[in-house]
């Protein structure tokens, strides 16, 4: 079976979806990604969907699931590079991908992940009995 490669880059996992996903491939990606978060202790997941021309309710749900599952495992998810036509379609379909962070491109997505991680580290420091 085909597989979507998951690359590790420091604290982050990088996934670039280059093919049209059919359901089983998307489900496999969801499972693999969550396993990888656990295995590598990644703090951020970046999914590049710039080559994806269609996101229907199923694919949208998979993306939402990945974000929620990663969050529970203490990793943030950012989706980057969504095509404008896909964004228009998702909103009209009634699936605005709530709870999923997004960025225009990979560079900004990385930046967003870094801020998010620093932010949450900052917060956990404040939680202590300082001063």
């Amino acid at each position, binding site marked *: 079976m085909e597989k979507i490669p998951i690359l590790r880059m420091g604290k982050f996992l990088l996934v670039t979806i280059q093919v049209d996903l059919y359901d089983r491939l998307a489900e496999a990606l969801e499972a693999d990604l969550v396993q990888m978060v656990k295995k590598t202790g990644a703090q951020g997941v970046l999914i590049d969907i710039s080559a994806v021309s*269609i*996101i229907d*309710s*199923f694919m949208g749900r998979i993306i939402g699931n990945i974000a929620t599952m990663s969050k529970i495992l203490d990793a943030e998810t950012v989706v980057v590079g969504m095509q*404008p036509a896909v964004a*228009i379609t998702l909103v*009209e*379909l*009634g699936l605005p991908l709530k709870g999923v962070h997004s960025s225009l491109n990979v560079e900004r997505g990385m930046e967003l992940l870094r801020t998010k991680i620093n932010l949450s580290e900052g917060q956990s420091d404040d939680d202590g009995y300082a001063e």
Partner: protein
Amino acid sequence: MMVTLNKDVMSIVKEQDVIPFRNRIKEYATKIGMGLVNQTKLITAASELVRNMLKYANGGKVYIEVVSKGRENGIRLSFEDKGPGIPDINLALKDGYSTGKSLGLGLPGTKRLVSEFNIASEVGKGTTVTVVKWKNG
């Protein structure tokens, strides 16, 4: 008066049939000069309907037609299955209603994405969903 200019049929029996089917629609839509946003809406709608067909009726047939009405050209897709049928169509068209485990966006969402939407179903016999997307609609 709607005139059919071209007719094609594809049978969908397994998940892997969906991607070639989407590509076929894209070919036709490009041929009539449909813009990218409308193409994306049409293909997304088709994707939802074909998923329903696979999930509830183990597949079926899809007719892809290039149609014309007055000056407008468009694509008409008819999804025919011999599945269990839908007992209450109005309920199935409601946002957030699902008998499966999905979000219940399939039918109502699809309706919003296309220009014309029609559904006929008989319990025990099957369901036919017909959608039209006009080139500029």
